[in-house]
C-alpha cells in the first residue's frame, strides 16, 4: 500500500466536480424535486383534497415521512457525539457523512411538516399563539435546537479544512473560493483556535445527546399522548429512539459505500469501517427488535378489544404484507447478513443498509396510518373513500421529492466540501506513523 502523504490525502479528498454519473444523478434528483414542487403547488391551490387523507386517516405519508426524517437525522448525534465522547477513533472519516445526513434530514423534516399543514401560511401562529402544553410546540423547540447544534457540529470541524481549501484558489473557481473565504478566512490554524473549537465541539457533543433523544421522543409523543390503540404506549419513546439509531446507522453505511465507490476512497473508508459499522448495525437492529417485541407481543397477549382489530390488521390483515416486509427488511434480514464476518464486507453491508432504510420507511408508515383506521367508535356516516388510505400521486410526488431534496443537499455538500475531514485524516495518519 502506498504511503499516505499530506499532499496525497488532500488530492484524494479534495471536493471533485460532478462527473457524468454525478450530473445524471443531480439532474434526476432535481427532476424529482420539481415534480414534488409541482404537486405541492396543486395541493396549495386545491387544498389537502388532492391527498388521500380524510377525516379518519387524517395523517398519512407526509407524517410518516416526517417521522422517518427525524429518525434518520439522529445518526448525527450517534456517530459524532456518542462515538466521540467514548473516544472511538475509527469513526473520524464517518463523522461528516453522519452530520450532513443529520442536517439535511432535519431540514426536510421541518419542510414536510409544513407541507402537511392545512394552512401553511399561518405557520407564524406557532410563535404568535404557541401554547407550551402542546407536544407540537415541544417538537418545534427541540427540532430547531437540534438543527442549530448539528449545523455547528458540521461547521466547526470544517474550519481547518476550509483553510486547506482556500489554498487552492485556481482549482476552486471564483464562487467556491468566495464561499470558502466567507466561511473560513478567519481561521489561521493557531493553537488557541484549535483549543477553542475542541472545547466547543466537546460541549456541543454533550449537548446534542439529550436534544437528539428529545427530538425523537417528542415525535413519538405526538402519537403516544393520544388514546388510540397502537399509539397509546409507554414503550413509544424508547421504541422510536432505537428505531431511529438503526435507520440512521443504516443510512450512514449506504452513504459510506456510495462515497467510497464514487470518489474511490478505499484507503479512507476501509473494509474495517464496514466491519465495525456492521457490528453497530446488528446491535441496533437487535435493540429495535427487542422494542418491537415489547410493542406488539405484549398487547397481542392480552388482545384488548380496542387493540385487537389494529393488531390483527397488522399481523394477518390488510397491512400484513407491509408489516412483515418491514420487519424482515429492517431487522431480520440485515441481522442475518451482518452477524457473519463475510456479511460485514462493503457490498453485503451496503445491501443490509439499504434494506434497513427501506424497511424503516415502511415501518414509519405502519406506525402512523393503520392506527387511524381503527378509531374507538366505528367509522360511520362518511363517504366510502374515508374507509381506506391509498396515497395519491401528489402525495407520493411530494414525499419522494422531499427524499430527493435531502439527497440533493448531501450531494451538493459533498461537491463543495470534503466529505471526509482532510485535516483530521492528516493528523491521524501522522500519529499512526509516529507510533
Amino acid at each position, binding site marked *: 500500500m502506498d504511503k499516505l502523504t499530506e499532499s496525497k490525502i488532500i488530492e484524494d479528498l479534495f471536493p471533485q466536480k460532478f462527473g457524468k454519473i454525478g450530473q445524471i444523478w443531480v439532474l434526476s434528483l432535481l427532476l424529482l424535486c420539481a415534480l414534488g414542487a409541482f404537486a405541492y403547488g396543486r395541493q396549495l391551490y386545491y387544498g389537502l383534497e388532492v391527498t388521500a387523507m380524510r377525516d379518519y386517516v387524517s395523517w398519512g405519508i407526509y407524517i410518516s415521512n416526517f417521522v422517518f426524517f427525524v429518525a434518520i437525522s439522529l445518526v448525527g448525534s450517534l456517530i459524532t457525539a456518542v462515538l466521540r465522547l467514548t473516544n472511538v477513533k475509527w469513526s473520524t472519516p464517518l463523522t461528516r457523512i453522519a452530520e450532513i445526513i443529520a442536517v439535511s434530514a432535519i431540514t426536510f423534516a421541518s419542510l414536510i411538516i409544513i407541507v402537511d399543514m*392545512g394552512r401553511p401560511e*399561518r405557520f407564524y*401562529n406557532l410563535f404568535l399563539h*404557541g401554547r407550551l402544553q402542546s407536544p407540537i410546540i415541544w417538537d418545534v423547540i427541540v427540532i430547531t435546537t437540534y438543527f442549530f447544534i448539528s449545523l455547528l457540529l458540521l461547521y466547526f470541524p470544517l474550519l481547518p479544512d476550509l483553510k486547506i481549501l482556500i489554498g487552492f484558489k485556481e482549482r476552486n473557481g471564483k464562487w467556491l473560493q468566495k464561499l470558502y473565504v466567507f466561511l473560513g478566512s478567519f481561521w489561521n490554524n493557531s493553537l488557541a483556535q484549535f483549543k477553542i473549537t475542541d472545547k466547543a465541539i466537546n460541549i456541543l457533543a454533550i449537548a446534542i445527546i439529550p436534544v437528539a433523544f428529545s427530538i425523537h421522543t417528542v415525535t413519538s409523543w405526538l402519537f403516544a*399522548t393520544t388514546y388510540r390503540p397502537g399509539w397509546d404506549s409507554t414503550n413509544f419513546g424508547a421504541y422510536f429512539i432505537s428505531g431511529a439509531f438503526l435507520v440512521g446507522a443504516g443510512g450512514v453505511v449506504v452513504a459510506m459505500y456510495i462515497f467510497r465507490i464514487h470518489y474511490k476512497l478505499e484507503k479512507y473508508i476501509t473494509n474495517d469501517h464496514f466491519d465495525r459499522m456492521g457490528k453497530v448495525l446488528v446491535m441496533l437492529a437487535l435493540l429495535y427488535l427487542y422494542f418491537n417485541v415489547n410493542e406488539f407481543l405484549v398487547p397481542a397477549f392480552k388482545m384488548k378489544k380496542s387493540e385487537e382489530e389494529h393488531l390483527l390488521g397488522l399481523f394477518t390483515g390488510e397491512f400484513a404484507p407491509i408489516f412483515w416486509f418491514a420487519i424482515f427488511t429492517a431487522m431480520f434480514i440485515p441481522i442475518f447478513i451482518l452477524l457473519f464476518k463475510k456479511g460485514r464486507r462493503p457490498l453485503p453491508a451496503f445491501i443490509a443498509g439499504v434494506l434497513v432504510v427501506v424497511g424503516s420507511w415502511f415501518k414509519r408508515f405502519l406506525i402512523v396510518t393503520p392506527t387511524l383506521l381503527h378509531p374507538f*367508535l366505528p367509522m360511520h356516516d362518511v363517504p366510502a373513500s374515508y374507509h381506506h388510505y391509498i396515497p395519491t400521486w401528489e402525495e407520493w410526488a411530494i414525499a419522494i421529492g422531499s427524499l430527493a431534496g435531502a439527497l440533493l443537499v448531501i450531494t451538493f455538500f459533498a461537491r463543495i466540501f470534503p466529505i471526509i475531514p482532510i485535516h483530521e485524516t492528516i493528523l491521524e495518519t501522522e500519529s499512526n506513523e509516529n507510533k
Partner: protein
Amino acid sequence: MKTNQNSRRDFLATSLIAGAALAGCSNKNPFTTEEIPDVKASGEMVKLLSVDGEIIEVDKAFLKPVPTLPAVMNTEAREGITGKKFVMVIDLSRCKSVKKCQTACNHMHHIHPGQNWIKVYPIQEAEHTAPYWQPTTCMHCDEPPCVKVCPVDATFKRKDGIVLIDSDRCIGCRFCMAACPYSTRVFNWEQPLLEKEIAEKPYSCETSVPQKKGTVGKCDFCPDMVRQGNLPHCVSACPNGVFMFGDILEDTVTNGAETFRFSELIRDKAGYRLMEDLGTKPSVYYLPPVNRNFPFENKEDAADPKKG
C-alpha cells in the same frame, strides 16, 4: 341650544352604530362618521335603552338597520357565558335514526356535503347484546384532549363548558383529530361548498360559520342559539325528543317539549357518559336504550355494525 341637542343626538346615534359595528367585528372603521353626513332629522323620536341602562330618545332618521352580524366579539366568544355550564342528555331509547338532527346541523352550519358533525352510529357491543342507535355530537369534555394538544390555542374550552374552534387561527395540523377518541372532528380538505353570501361573512366561533378550507370543524353546541335563549339545532329538529339540552347549574334539561331535572333524569334512568375510563369527562350524557320507543331497524348499512 337646538344645535347643541342635535350634536348630542348625532353623538348618540354615531356611538350606537359604532357600538353595533364593534360588536359585529365588521371590517369597517367603527369610529368614522362619514356614513351619516347628510341625514336630516325626521322629528320622529324612538326610545332606546342605552348601554348604561338609561332610556334615551333618538331621532328615527339616525337609526340604521344593522345587517345580521355575529352577536359577540371573538374575545367574548372565547370567554363563554358567565354562570352557565351546558350539558346534553341523549336518550337512546328514543332514537330510531331519523337523522333530522344531522340534516338540521349540516344545514345550519353550512357543512361541506358528505361531512357530518353529528353522526348516528349503529352500535352493537357484542354478538348477543342488543343493537341500538347512538347519535354523537362533540362531547365538550371537561378534560378535552383536543384542547390539550392544540399548538396555537385555536380550539379552546370556555367557562360555560363549550369547546369551540377559531377557524381564523387554526393551522390545520389535525393533531386534535388524532387526539379526539370520539372521532368527532372533521377537516375541510377542500374549499367548503358555500353560498357566496355565507362564504363572505366574517367567521364567528359561536356559529362556526363559515367553515374554511384547511381548518378543522366540529359540533359547537350552538352557543349563538343558546345566547338568544333558543335550543341547539339538533335538539329542536329531532321529532322524537332524543336530545335534551340545558344547564347543569340550573339542574334542568329540555328537548323543547319536556323539561327534566337533570340529576333526577340521570339517577332514575342510570345515565352514563361515553368512554368514562379515558378520563375526558364529557358534557354529554346518555340514557341507556331500554324500554325503547322503536325497534332497531338498520336499513342504511345492513352489513356491518362491526364494532362496539
